[in-house]
């Protein structure tokens, strides 16, 4: 009898607290915790067919800057009322808190090779829009010598740009030096962006200084180590780099074969370790990847820019309207404004998750896993609203309406495939 009691007691007490639990990784992010810096590089096609496009960009740019909102430096922080007002603005008009800067180069690699024209224009600069328009029109736009621009005798130097570019305006802004500046007939926007980045970092990748050998030709290197930091300040630490290509042509970058997607450049850009987003303001494509409006643009060249925009979560805006006329840049700049809000769409994970073990929460609420609903013209998956796991960089990517808003807390729980290292406090 006594033995039976002891055995029962042992059975009851020995196994207490022996529960086994798998350990999950938990990664927490905050949508507002990333940098609010946006470095915007306009890569302008300066071939002679671009005058109308550049003019439209210039004319709309001042309004675009106004739409971005109040400059943070002008805000008042005197009392609680100011704080509340600022917070409301912060939530409703985030772009007014984005620390952006603009730079301009051209698609002409032979002459400019990614060199910035006219220097950086920062948000806090006086006459921000005017300075940008000056860089655009005086340095990066091709005005043929025989081109006749309208006259505006009533224009006074110092007045803002009106509804059109006039010789009088350009004479004032550019000190008479605005004619010419016509670039190569081969537009290489992607190569120009690569070279601009090479010039902007203290330790450029070796590819920046090597000659380019292709089956068709060998191109000598456009840069030497002496060009390092010749675009200093263009890429700030922890900034989001937005490339805006404005062209009525496709890309003809020299490293690529004619009808190919620019994977090679994607790998080159990765060496910089920057978050990049591409905006292409150029000829639109139809569902068969053919240029809609007749012109000199090649289908495959336009597809290259589309590829960069699609793969980086960017925007593609048709430079032409339904009548194949240069359209108002209001919509194009509006798309850029959306990108300046800098919403992060992907969040990296520390370890590779076991499939099916991922839980994603935004502000404590579960987000459904997205499903593939289609494929785009590049064969890339198109997702429904939700999140998906991206194995290429081991991250969780949000799609559509599931992209976390500002101030949102993002939590990702997952069971790591390689377990948890035993450096825990027990």
């Amino acid at each position, binding site marked *: 009898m006594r033995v039976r009691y002891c055995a*029962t007691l042992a059975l009851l007490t020995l196994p*207490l607290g022996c529960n086994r639990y798998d*350990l*999950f990784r938990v990664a927490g992010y905050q949508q507002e915790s990333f940098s609010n810096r946006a470095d915007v590089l306009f890569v302008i096609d300066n071939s002679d067919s671009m005058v109308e496009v550049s003019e439209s960009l210039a004319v709309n740019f001042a309004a675009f800057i106004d739409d971005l909102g109040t400059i943070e430096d002008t805000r008042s922080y005197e009392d609680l009322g100011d704080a509340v007002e600022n917070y409301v603005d912060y939530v409703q008009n985030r772009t007014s808190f984005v620390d952006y800067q603009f730079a301009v180069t051209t698609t002409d690699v032979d002459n400019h090779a990614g060199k910035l024209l006219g220097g950086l224009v920062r948000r806090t600069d006086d006459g921000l829009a005017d300075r940008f328009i000056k860089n655009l029109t005086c340095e990066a736009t091709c005005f043929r010598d025989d081109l006749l621009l309208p006259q505006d005798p009533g224009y006074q130097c110092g007045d803002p740009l009106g509804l059109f570019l006039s010789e009088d305006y350009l004479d004032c802004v550019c000190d008479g030096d605005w004619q010419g500046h016509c670039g190569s007939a081969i537009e290489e926007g992607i190569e120009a962006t690569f070279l601009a980045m090479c010039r902007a970092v203290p330790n450029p990748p070796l590819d920046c200084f090597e000659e380019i050998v292709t089956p068709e030709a060998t191109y000598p290197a456009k840069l030497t180590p002496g060009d390092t930091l010749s675009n200093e300040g263009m890429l700030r630490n922890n900034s989001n780099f937005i490339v805006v290509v404005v062209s009525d042509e496709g890309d003809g970058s020299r490293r690529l074969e004619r009808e190919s997607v620019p994977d090679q450049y994607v790998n080159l850009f990765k060496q910089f370790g920057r978050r990049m987003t591409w905006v292409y303001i150029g000829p639109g494509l139809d569902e068969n990847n053919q240029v809609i409006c007749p012109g000199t643009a090649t289908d495959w060249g336009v597809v290259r820019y589309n590829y960069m925009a699609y793969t980086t979560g960017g925007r593609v805006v048709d430079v032409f309207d339904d009548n194949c006329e240069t359209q108002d840049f209001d919509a194009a700049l509006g798309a850029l404004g959306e990108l300046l809000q800098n919403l992060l769409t992907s969040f990296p994970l520390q370890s590779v998750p076991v499939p099916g073990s991922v*839980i994603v929460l935004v502000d404590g609420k*579960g987000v459904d896993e997205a499903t593939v609903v289609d494929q785009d013209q590049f064969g890339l998956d198109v997702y429904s609203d939700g999140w998906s796991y991206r194995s290429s960089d081991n991250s969780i990517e949000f799609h559509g309406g599931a992209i976390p808003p500002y101030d949102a807390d993002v939590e990702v729980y997952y069971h790591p495939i390689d377990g948890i290292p035993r450096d*825990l406090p*027990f």
Partner: protein
Amino acid sequence: MNKLLFAALAAVIAPLGGPAHAQETVDIGRIRDGDITVVQKLLYPKEGRTELGLHLGVMPFDAYLTTPNAQLSFGQHFSERLGLSVVAGGGYGLKTGVYRQLESPTYGVAPYAYRYLGSALAGLEWSPIYAKLNLNGARVIHFDVYFTGRIGASVEQSVIPQGGMAFGPTASPGLGSRFFLGSGSALKLELRDDLLIERRSLTESWEFKQNANVVLGIVLLSGGGRS
């Protein structure tokens, strides 16, 4: 009982008295071992009585979760030693300091633990021991000790949000005691160990789990019972 007490007192007092007188001698007989038991008669018998109880408990032995809970019990005593026992309850597992430390940014780890939400169990209760205890020389406490075995089901929920629910078949051995407060009520203390198997959805695995529960409550017993 009085006879035994008298005999004992007499044995103690006798040497202190004066000279013995043969004619005053009283024959109290011989006390045998078989005549001495702890409890000569059960003061609070259970046989034929029904028991209802309300209990508060805690599951303190899990490293990641502490679970306060409440239980309702029903018992039917077939005999003094054997009875039916039904228990149903609910609770909520709270993260311990260890869990919170693990899930902090320092470690970034979340145990895929499941918290107790509720259970319903039924089984038998075997009470082989009835005893009384003299407390501090003043009060005599009557109590019993019982072993119980119950089976049923438990409901649990992942501590990781959206991590799933689990319904597990449960076997629950236990050990407890009733401290009788009177003929119709008792304080009931029980240690039970809910052993369950549950399916965890995120890891797609079957896992064994136990919820060791320390429970204290009041039970009401039907009928007079006092003999």
